[in-house]
């Protein structure tokens, strides 16, 4: 069963991994996005994730179902965290499994790329010695102008 969630709780990679897998599957891919200590040459001390939560949940579910259609199985789980995260904490975890490896790699990559394109989530980087800054992002498809 496809699983997706937006949560303020810390993400446990093992429990995400345990949501996928089947005796039919020969491949599992787990992707973790993690808060790193640098960006554009600046030293980062932490990250605050904000979300339009009422919209982020259905958009993440939609992305997960699109990826499952590519994957060919329902064995896909994605969890995105929001709130204040320290360096090294997991911001997003994506687990998928499938009979063959190509589909798992592809679906995993699809989920993270689509999250970056259209999940209504924002992040604010905090630095040692300058004010916090909202990270430059992407205008989602289907908005930001008039219908073509």
């Amino acid at each position, binding site marked *: 069963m496809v699983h997706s969630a937006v949560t303020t709780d810390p993400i446990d990679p093992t429990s995400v991994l345990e949501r996928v897998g089947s005796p039919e599957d020969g491949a599992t891919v787990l992707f973790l996005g993690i808060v790193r200590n640098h960006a554009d040459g600046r030293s980062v001390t932490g990250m605050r994730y904000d979300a*339009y939560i009422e919209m982020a949940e*259905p958009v993440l579910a939609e992305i997960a179902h699109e990826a499952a259609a590519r994957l060919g199985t329902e064995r896909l789980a994605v969890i995105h965290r929001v709130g204040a995260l320290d360096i090294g904490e997991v911001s997003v975890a994506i687990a998928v499994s499938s009979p063959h490896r190509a589909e798992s790699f592809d679906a995993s990559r699809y989920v993270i790329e689509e999250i970056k*394109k259209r*999940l209504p989530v924002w992040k604010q980087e905090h630095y040692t010695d300058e004010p916090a800054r909202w990270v430059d992002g992407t*205008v989602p498809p289907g*908005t930001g102008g008039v219908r073509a």
Partner: protein
Amino acid sequence: MTLSVNALFFASYRDLVGTSHMAVELSPGATVSDLVAELRGRGAPFDTLPAEPAVAVNRTYAFLDEPLSADDEVAFIPPVAGG
């Protein structure tokens, strides 16, 4: 008779306008563009919002020519940066 919608502001837009949400009265038949023009016409701090922002109407991304109905939720969406 006017049309009342609920405007939401997130992240950098919330910082710009200093609030996360507000009710806005529009004329019947108004579109997202009309809402943007109404807000920017109020001057500071609303005139710092972009003239063609990304928006979601009732939690679905929409273009500026999207017509609005009473009680619609119109979110101003800064460029997204999840992951």
